[in-house]
């Protein structure tokens, strides 16, 4: 299992569009993706609804976990997506 800790960069946190981009990317991998917020709530990385209801705003700390054959690749791609602020600058 691959794990990493990240900070949400984009202004709006996990609103509809970022959640959608994340889910689309996560869906490209076999690996199970889990996102955990600072209070320990977990979301399925392939579910917009769960991601949105984690209440992640800019500056929030999250833990990203991936489990499965392509876990490492999934994790690095998703990390990049979050660190780029979902392309919003």
């Amino acid at each position, binding site marked *: 299992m691959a794990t990493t800790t990240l900070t949400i960069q984009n202004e709006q946190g996990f*609103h509809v569009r970022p959640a959608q981009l994340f889910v689309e990317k996560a869906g490209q991998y076999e690996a199970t993706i889990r996102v955990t917020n600072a209070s320990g709530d977990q979301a399925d990385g392939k579910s917009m609804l769960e991601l*949105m*209801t984690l209440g992640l705003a800019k500056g929030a700390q999250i833990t990203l976990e991936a489990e499965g054959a392509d876990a490492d690749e999934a994790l690095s791609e998703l990390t990049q997506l979050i660190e780029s602020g979902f392309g919003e600058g």
Partner: protein
Amino acid sequence: MPAAEYRIRGIGVSPGIRIGRALVYGALAEREAEPSLGATSPGAGAGAGGAVSTGGGPSVAIGSAPAAGSGASATGGGASATGNRAAATDGGVPVAGDRAAATDGGAPSAGSGPVATDGGAAPDSPAAGAGTAPGAASDASRESELALLQQARSRSEAELLALAERTRATLGEEQAGILSGQAKFLADPAFYPPMEKKIREEGISAREAVQAIVTHTAGRFEALNNPYMQERAADIRDLGQRLLSHLSEDGGGVRLTDIREEVILVAHDLAPSDTVQLDKRYILAFVTRAGGKTSHTSLLARSLGIAAVVGAGEAVGDIADGDQLIVDGDEGVIIVQPDAATLAAYRQRQAAAEHEARELEAYLGQPAVSRDGVAVELAANIGTVQEAEAAAELQAEGIGLYRTEFLFMEAKQLPSEEEQTTAYRAVAERMAGKPVIIRTLDIGGDKALPYLQLPREDNPFLGYRAIRIGLDRQELLLTQLRAILRASAYGQLKIMFPMISGLSEWRQARALYEQARTELESEGVAIAAPGELEVGIMIEIPSAALQADRLAREVDFFSIGTNDLVQYTLAVDRMNEHVAYLYDYFHPAVLQLIRRVIEAAHREGKWAGMCGGMAGDPLAAPLLLGLGLDEWSMDAGAIVRIKRALSSLDSGACRQLADELLALDTPEEVRAALLRHQAEAQ
């Protein structure tokens, strides 16, 4: 026993008085299925009594306590609100609602067991209606429920995508996005699969599974301390309602498009997909538990001319199908089961309003001139292209204030230059060459933008807002100015900066405007020539009013924003009920600032307008005419009233009156003098 009348207070967002029967729509009814709500709500008794008097048929209690199960006698006393709702349904509610299903066969379903669960809806479900108790479902019935759910899902998805397509053409990308977003939620692993799981594991009906997951998911959004996310709960409920509507052959859920009799819609909230379907021939008015003044639903109601009261709170849950209602959109009041005297009083008010409307109609085609032929420009305040539509119909001579923050508040993220250009262009084209003053982003204060995450402030109205944000985060303002300039090729646009406190801010803002212009010119984009596009400022801070003579040399125009000018001059928060009585635009100090601004503009050969509430007040008309105000911008509905007021005024007499009013001591004296003048003019 006659029904006891009671009143519910809300926010009147679309004026008018309507009298009609309640139709409880969707999400509200779903909430009522929760046993605790119906049973504990104190108002239920009053509403219930009324419901019985309108109904004749047998009473069927849904999901109420077993004691309430004995038909008609239950309605006399302690029956739950839900039980009576069913009785009311018998009384001739026009459309089969969720509740109406309970009348099928009049089965005394109250006796059925699953009262304590949220299975109040069990008898509604076609499958469960056969008498199958939840938990005892056979494999065959599970499979059929799963198939029903699957069918509802694919129909809902097709419907949403088609609706999104149509909405894209009529209301734009923004609204369409909300609908296609709902289609995405439908495919979410945390939405649909748990419904299937519930049916498989708990043997409940498809309808119950939808209700359970929708309630759960919407609840999670509502629990977040974030208005944007809380609004997504309405999307989830909307989606749930759509699924439910496909779960029964006989229209288990009310479909707005199926309503063919006059009703007053009562709902938890109306989602954008509901609102676009409202047919004003049948929907006399609507009342919602949630919602606010600036929501899209409210704005749309105003442009559709449907009276509406929103944000009326929990008490809305006590209104039953078929209850007689008076909706007073002027005052923001709902009267449930009005007694004869109240009804008579409101019918009289309604008749008077209709009479006045007919009288005002005569002024629709007339120019806005005083009795002695002095013409002024009457323009409209808008926030959306739909409102521009309504403004054009009401013969606004232009748009005096286009509040762009609405575009930003409805968006999920910062609208791009492209999206902004499209919106501004649509308004410019709709107004067909008439002037449109676009105010740059005025957020902060009481208007938040979730995705900008502005800091919480102790003193927001004296803090980081409007032009202060635009000059700090210049990329925001620059993008907006570029978008306005690009749209300027399609109509007569003007730019107005809000909250300017002095010359430095104005000069910085103008420099950004020049930068945007230079950029676009070098990119070869077609924009209006410098002489064709006026750039002005709002005067809403006393310091700007006091420096109006300096500012007038540099700006093309002023527009006086009385709402903030009064608040800042008198140091009164009009939302604060303890001091709101001090808020008065007839205060002589405010009048002196207004005169100063108009005179300063005229000395420099510029024009002065007003886009605050004062401009639409007929009582203020003689004063403003006397002060020489050039452009008056107001809610489009007020234009015809101001035309009528102007037609009886003499500009010379008004000039003299204005001098007299400015010499008075108190707002009370000014008001009294204006009332005397008004009485004499008639």
